[in-house]
């Protein structure tokens, strides 16, 4: 279980795009704390501190204690907005946690014993279907990660959620089916695909030369297009 991390914040008075842009220009990340039947509070956090936590990869499943000008609140990040181009954090939503709160969190899956899988040794690929698994757990004991053991798995085999060890105090949010977490896929299908593509490329090259000859009108080009289909 991840230890509680402390993060310092300051209250921000103004909301809206202009005010938040000014906060970002000042090297801070705007955020909000809500939940637990209390009014929401708009805050701002230090950019470097947020980025350090985000880089760990477990930011959304870590409980933080936000120190808001001396007043401490236990929270969990619910949403992290990133800039689509440069991937820096632009906004963080925190959910206030009351006593004995149970929350739905996305816990990362880690794969172990990859060397002991005959399928992977033979050149198979571990095709991860779910990188994270959503589960309901007490705020005090959120697992760091869930281990998936691939020992003895061959090409074509898969790991389902029922094959994995889930802590006792944790409940899965998907309970109606035994969903797949990962599969071990073979390489043969893709190799055949590539060979077919190489052959197709050869044919296309020949067609291209024909196309260049018939450049007089639209009809000729249309014929070329049809032949490609």
């Amino acid at each position, binding site marked *: 279980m991840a230890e509680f991390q402390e993060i310092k914040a300051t209250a921000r008075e103004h909301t809206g795009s202009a005010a938040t842009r000014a906060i970002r220009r000042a090297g801070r990340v705007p955020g909000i704390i809500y939940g637990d039947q209390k009014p929401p509070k708009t805050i701002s956090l230090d950019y470097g501190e947020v980025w350090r936590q*985000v*880089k*760990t*990869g*477990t*930011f959304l499943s870590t409980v933080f204690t936000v120190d808001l000008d001396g007043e401490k609140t236990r929270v969990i990040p619910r949403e992290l907005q*990133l*800039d*689509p*181009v440069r*991937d820096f954090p632009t906004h963080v939503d925190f959910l206030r946690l009351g006593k004995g709160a149970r929350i739905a969190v996305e816990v*990362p899956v880690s794969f172990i014993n990859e060397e002991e899988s005959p399928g992977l040794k033979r*050149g198979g*690929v*571990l*095709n*991860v279907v779910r*990188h994270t698994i959503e589960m309901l757990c007490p705020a005090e004991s959120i697992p760091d990660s869930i281990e998936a053991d691939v020992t003895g798995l061959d090409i074509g085999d898969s790991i389902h959620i029922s094959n994995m060890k889930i802590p006792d105090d944790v409940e899965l949010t998907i309970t109606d089916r035994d969903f797949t977490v990962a599969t071990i*896929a073979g*390489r043969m299908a*893709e*190799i055949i695909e*590539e060979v077919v593509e190489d052959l197709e490329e050869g044919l*296309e090259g020949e067609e291209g030369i024909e196309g260049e000859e018939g*450049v*007089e*009108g*639209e009809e000729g*080009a*249309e014929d070329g*297009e049809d032949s490609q289909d």
Partner: protein
Amino acid sequence: MLQPKRTKFRKAQKGRIKGTAKGGSSLNFGSYGLKAQKPARITSRQIEAARRAMTRQMKRVGRVWIRIFPDVPVSKKPTEVRMGKGKGAPEFWCAKVKPGRIMFEIDGVSDVIAREALRLGAAKLPVKTRVVARLGDN
């Protein structure tokens, strides 16, 4: 090469690529990805060349996902033809890519091989790109 099976209209207007990617800006399948930093039209040939460069560098280990699809027909007039007399014939297909879009994803190979494969793939594309990794992996 990728192209639509059938389309409603044969020809499309050129348009402009404005703004940043609204979706497809985070990794969905693999552990590493190639993210566009500028707007661009990527042709189906460029996508195929990039895919080939990546799979060959990876020596057929691991997996590559293509997150863009060339669904815009680009027309061209024949050479030595005067202007006017209607729009040219469809010549090739392209994907309109906005900054922030993940174009390719890779998984099943080491960090060094993945980054090198994406670097080689990026060399085939007419756009400035950046290699991104799943948070926690870098």
